[in-house]
């Protein structure tokens, strides 16, 4: 039988494509369950591969029991109230706050990239510096940042800024330069000034691609955020994961990792929906 059906011209049926897309998830979960069961058979105190029941209990405690520092808080109250007093909620809130500040700080990065791409003197002034900055491994700056800015929020935010903004600036710069010059000439012939051309023509055209670029960099934002939280923080999802590592708390670490992945997936999904709503023309092309 020819194997041609597996090659470029293959047209997988919708059902088979769906089954294939879930196959690795199912395999991974099955392999984990098998290994966990085997290890628990050998050692009842096994903590590296918690069972599903152990993880569910760990997550229940994290999501519905008061945080360690709030032991005095009543365990009564509605589910929502209990969740809002929980360790998971407090950690999520702390990480989200840092994440939102980091995302807001990307706005000036986008504007800088836009101006660098459009205004030659601004480009000449910043480009070499940003290119150099982009090559610095942000994590290697971590000790310097903690010395310079202390171990407060500022150092963590700066780590994200240094780690991600050069990429966003350069992406925006390249996207700006890729706008056909005819579009700018056309805008000027229609009466646009320099800033009209920048904001009403170029920014509007590149914005969906910039949002996609930010989406692709979400993981980097989280990476730097987690690095900062793990090293110097008293709250946050990464702080908790680092803390639980010391106690081999895999029953909470694994659900926490999945929770972070879910949150990131939701942010990515939200940005995708927003992009589609704000820029219906982009979907057309």
């Amino acid at each position, binding site marked *: 039988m020819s194997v041609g059906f597996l090659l470029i011209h293959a047209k997988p049926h919708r059902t088979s494509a769906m089954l294939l897309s879930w196959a690795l998830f199912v395999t991974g979960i099955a392999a984990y369950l098998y290994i966990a069961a085997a290890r628990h058979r050998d050692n009842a105190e096994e903590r590296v591969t918690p069972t599903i029941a152990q993880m569910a209990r760990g997550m229940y405690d994290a999501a519905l029991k008061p945080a360690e520092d709030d032991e005095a808080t009543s365990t009564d109250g509605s589910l929502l109230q209990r969740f809002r007093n929980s360790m998971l909620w407090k950690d999520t809130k702390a990480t989200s706050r840092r994440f939102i500040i980091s995302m807001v700080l990307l706005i000036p990065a986008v504007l800088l990239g836009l101006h660098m791409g459009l205004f030659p003197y601004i480009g000449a002034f910043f480009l070499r510096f940003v290119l150099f900055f982009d090559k610095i491994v942000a994590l290697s700056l971590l000790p310097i940042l903690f010395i310079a800015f202390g171990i407060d929020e500022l150092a963590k935010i700066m780590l994200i800024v240094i780690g991600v903004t050069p990429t966003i600036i350069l992406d925006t710069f390249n996207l700006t330069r890729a706008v*056909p*010059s*005819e*579009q700018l*000439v*056309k*805008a*000027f*012939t*229609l*009466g*646009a*000034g320099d*800033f*009209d051309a920048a*904001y*009403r*023509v170029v920014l*509007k*055209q590149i914005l969906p691609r910039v949002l996609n670029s930010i989406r692709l960099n979400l993981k980097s934002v989280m990476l730097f955020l987690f690095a900062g939280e793990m090293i110097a923080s008293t709250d946050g999802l990464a702080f908790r994961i680092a803390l639980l590592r010391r106690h081999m708390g895999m029953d909470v670490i694994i659900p926490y990792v999945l929770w972070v992945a879910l949150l990131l997936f939701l942010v990515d999904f939200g940005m995708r929906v927003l992009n589609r709503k704000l*820029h*219906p*023309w*982009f979907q*057309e*092309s």
Partner: protein
Amino acid sequence: MALIAIDDVSVAYGTPARAVLDQISLQIEEGQFVCVLGQTGCGKSTLLRLVLGSEKPLHGKILIDGVEHHQPDRTRGYVPQKYSLFPDKTVLDNITFGPEVSEFSLLGHLTPRYYRRRRELRQEAFDYLRRIGLREADAGKYPEQLSGGMQQRVAIAQALITKPRILLMDEAFSALDPGTRRGMQDLIRELWRATGTTIVFVTHNTQEALRLATRVIVLAKPSPELGSLVKLDLAVPDPCFEEEIPHLVQKLESGAGWHPATDYLPAV
């Protein structure tokens, strides 16, 4: 005074310099429909960009109504071959972009006057939409949803709504199929008659030039190393009847073994 005066203009690119245009001098009067004709690489589009102000000559100067313009502005409308519309704007928004951007600053969008004026502009845009043969239902479409011919129609309306004194069109119909192209030629002639706008139209298609223009300027290189010169400057009868076109085509295309110093044909 000529509306467009191209005075002894030369252009060269690269290092070592490669001549593109060599001491071109032309005068274009208000209301003319001028086609610039020539083979690929002869500098037709360069000449257009010089008039547009998006490129500067090595020597010489270009005057629009006696004034030098160093960058594109709304005195000269522009319809390129590609990327003629803003992809993020609907047909209607593309057409109203010019008046909106001229009348309202970025913050001007926040004023009530903007919304009142916007309603008027949209009515005007619908008028243009009808004139270029599009339906009202097309107003909300994005350029990507339109055919090439429809996109160029919208681009013409977009340029004309700002009432420029000069409309510069760079191979604007080159990417269209013959049927659509013919329709567009009729449309632009009709709009030229109705508005009286001076049009400079770059093309490499002799038939198209003769069908459209009241004057055809042929650019050609005397040799590959030299820049283009004005090979022929021909007044075309207006209206130009179909049966005259083959004769004029022959006249325009009989350029073999040509020497600029001796074969320059003045406008007839």
